[in-house]
């Protein structure tokens, strides 16, 4: 595979992982976690991050076996040509399911802020941005993220801490919520999002040769976990664990109630700007992974020609949801079954590689 377009270093990898996990999930995490685990929602996030660690270590193990291949290349070597292509096609379909994020993204802009606007322009704009990001390649995304993400995290953390103090932190009691089984269920759902690091099977082959890529991945998961935990606690503090499950856009509703003294109020604009940047970069990254895989399947020399059609396809897919409720329904189903899927994609390839003793021949 000679599709490399730029390299990323391990700090950029960390940033990308954080971005990948936090990107879209930041907006809805308090709702889903409180729905499954009650007042112990934040524990669900912590448990879920274990899912990210599992998927992450599988991804890294695969990467160490095949340092210069992405998922397509590996599965072709390991599973044989046609089975490998099929496996990659499945992975491509999995990345297409992220079209739902585009839809969530536009709904989040439309409902609270542009109540009178149709969905079209927002989708077209996001398509333009994500295509541009994907054209520019993973290195550009990584560099942009490296500039923005620390700023975002630094400005969001104080807000989240204040959101906890604006509410009643006691709402998070009892700290085991609906019980260990419920927390495990919440963890499974959060794990689905943390499991999105599976996309890095495509991206890791762009990594500069370093030894501690697993550490970079782990830090990325950790940095994503902290704001997610905080916003879950903040949401439950402000709205109660039952109230937070009824919010369409928990992060925005939380931002609306944050008060610093009596002077700083109505901070949701900050939230939406930060989230816009995060979300766009994330969608761009998923699109890159998706088109690289597709290009691999069709054995194209470069993935650029596929960017626009794939972006268009995902936009059209995102329009398949009739109502906001169908989006919610899909996301719920999607997150319940995604963790096993994200374990399977690298897991099966790794298992077969170990059984068949396949390994990249060092040049």
């Amino acid at each position, binding site marked *: 595979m000679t599709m490399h377009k730029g390299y990323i270093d391990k700090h950029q990898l960390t940033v990308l992982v954080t971005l990948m996990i936090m990107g879209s999930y930041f907006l809805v995490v308090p709702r889903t976690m409180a729905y499954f685990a009650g007042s112990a929602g934040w524990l669900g996030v912590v448990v879920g991050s274990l899912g990210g660690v599992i998927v992450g270590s599988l991804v890294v193990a695969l990467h160490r076996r095949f340092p210069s291949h992405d998922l397509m290349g590996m599965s072709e070597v390991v599973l044989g040509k046609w089975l490998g292509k099929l496996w990659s096609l499945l992975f491509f379909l999995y990345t297409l399911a992220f079209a739902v994020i585009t839809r969530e993204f536009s709904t989040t802009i439309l*409902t*609270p*802020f*542009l*109540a*009178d*606007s*149709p969905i079209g*322009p927002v989708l*077209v*704009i996001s398509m*333009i*941005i994500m*295509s*541009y990001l994907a*054209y520019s390649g993973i290195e550009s995304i990584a560099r942009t993220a490296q500039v923005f993400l620390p700023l975002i995290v630094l400005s969001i953390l104080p807000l989240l801490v204040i959101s906890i103090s604006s509410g*009643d932190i*006691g*709402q998070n*009691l*009892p700290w*085991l919520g609906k*019980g260990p089984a419920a927390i495990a269920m919440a963890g499974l759902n959060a794990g689905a999002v943390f499991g999105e690091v599976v996309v890095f099977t495509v991206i890791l082959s762009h990594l500069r040769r370093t030894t501690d890529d697993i550490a970079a991945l782990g830090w990325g998961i950790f940095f994503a976990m902290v704001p997610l935990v905080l916003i879950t606690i903040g949401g439950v503090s*402000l*709205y*109660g*664990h*039952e*109230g*937070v499950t*009824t919010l369409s856009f928990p992060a925005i*509703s939380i931002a*609306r*109630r944050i*008060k610093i003294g*009596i002077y700083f*109020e*109505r901070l949701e604009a900050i939230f939406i700007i930060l989230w816009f940047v995060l979300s766009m970069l994330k969608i761009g990254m998923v699109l890159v992974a998706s088109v690289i895989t597709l290009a691999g399947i069709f054995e194209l020399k470069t993935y650029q020609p596929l960017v626009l059609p794939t972006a268009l396809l995902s936009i059209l897919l995102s329009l398949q949801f009739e109502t906001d409720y169908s989006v919610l329904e899909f996301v719920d189903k999607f997150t319940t079954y995604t963790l096993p899927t994200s374990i399977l994609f690298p897991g099966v390839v790794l298992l077969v590689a170990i059984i068949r003793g396949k390994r990249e021949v060092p040049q």
Partner: protein
Amino acid sequence: MKRLVRTFLSVCLFISLATLLTGCYGRNEMEETAFVTAFGIDKGSDKEFKLTILVPAPGKIAGSGSAGGGGGEGGSENPPYWLASAEGRTLWECFQELSKRSSRRIQFAHAAAAIIHENVARQGLEPLIDTFHRNAQMRPDTNVLVTTEPIEDILQVAFPLESLPSAYLARLQLFAHKHSQTTEYEVGDFYASSQAGQEAVIPRVSICKESTPPARSEHDEEKEKPPPKALLIEGAAVFRQDRQVGWLDGQEIFALESIRGRQVRNPLSVEVDGIAYTIVIRENYRKIKVIPNLSNLGNSEIQIKVRYETDLGEVQRGGLTITNEVLNKVAVKAEEQVSTLMRNLIQKAKYELASDIFGFGELIRRKVPDRVWRQVKGHWNKEFPNLIVSVDTEVIIRRLGMTVRSPYIE
């Protein structure tokens, strides 16, 4: 070629962002928007709801000072606001009715207060709560108030120090915690109140009757009475689920807030040996303990201990040296007073109102979720009166003020 494509694409991107993201599609000009600063909901005379809105006229507020008084009738100058009401089956119908009359687009996002009339509150807030939360214009930090007076009257009160009735209302709310005779309630608090085990207590606003100055000359009385000059935020409406079931007065709110563990700043007047003392609460702490009764879940016990750190504010006897003995006597008396207040309130909440305004259910949910709360959750309102609540108060008078013994005139 590639360079060209990239340049072309980025130019396209910038142009489309610049034109589309500015929100020009659904544009809302400031000058074409009517910002509602306070609104009220009452029962309509022949329809379900009556929505009253107060919209300030931006040009007229500046410099209008106290001239902007009154309801508009009779005054030579128009008030610097537009007050209107409309009736409808739903709030949206009322809103539509108002929109027909307004030359500007009506916006609720800056409403400082939402006043709900008792008539609606007694019937249940359920139909309103949804609109408050579904509509993106409504803010979760809008203050909610309940009243028994006509809402138009409240929104017309011209307080001399404020230019607008709504600004007056908002500032009244802001300083409510200085006197601890009322509580705070925001739209977003409906979420917490919707959980079992914690009922809503919404502050009450009323028109202050006594501050109306007497008419200057006799023949003025024949004319219309001058509009009232002041409002009063005191006490609160108590809800059971979404229905109002009663009222609490200022002193009861003081007891309630102490039991809830919120900060109160209340002067306490105590009479010992014929001398009136006033002590002022500076800080208060609450310790609360749940002792679950597993054989009879509803009969669980809750022990509350409230400690007040107070300062001596006033002694109505000159020449009296304040010693620890005196302070002790005052403190003991004050403890008795506050405890009685609390016990009475608890009795009232249990038997008269049957509403868990203290959030004891919520406390049980936090402390003993599995053994008790899960069993009583469904019928908590029935179980709540069986709860055994014991109150203990401790008053500590720390600071004496600027004098140990005030001058005495013989």
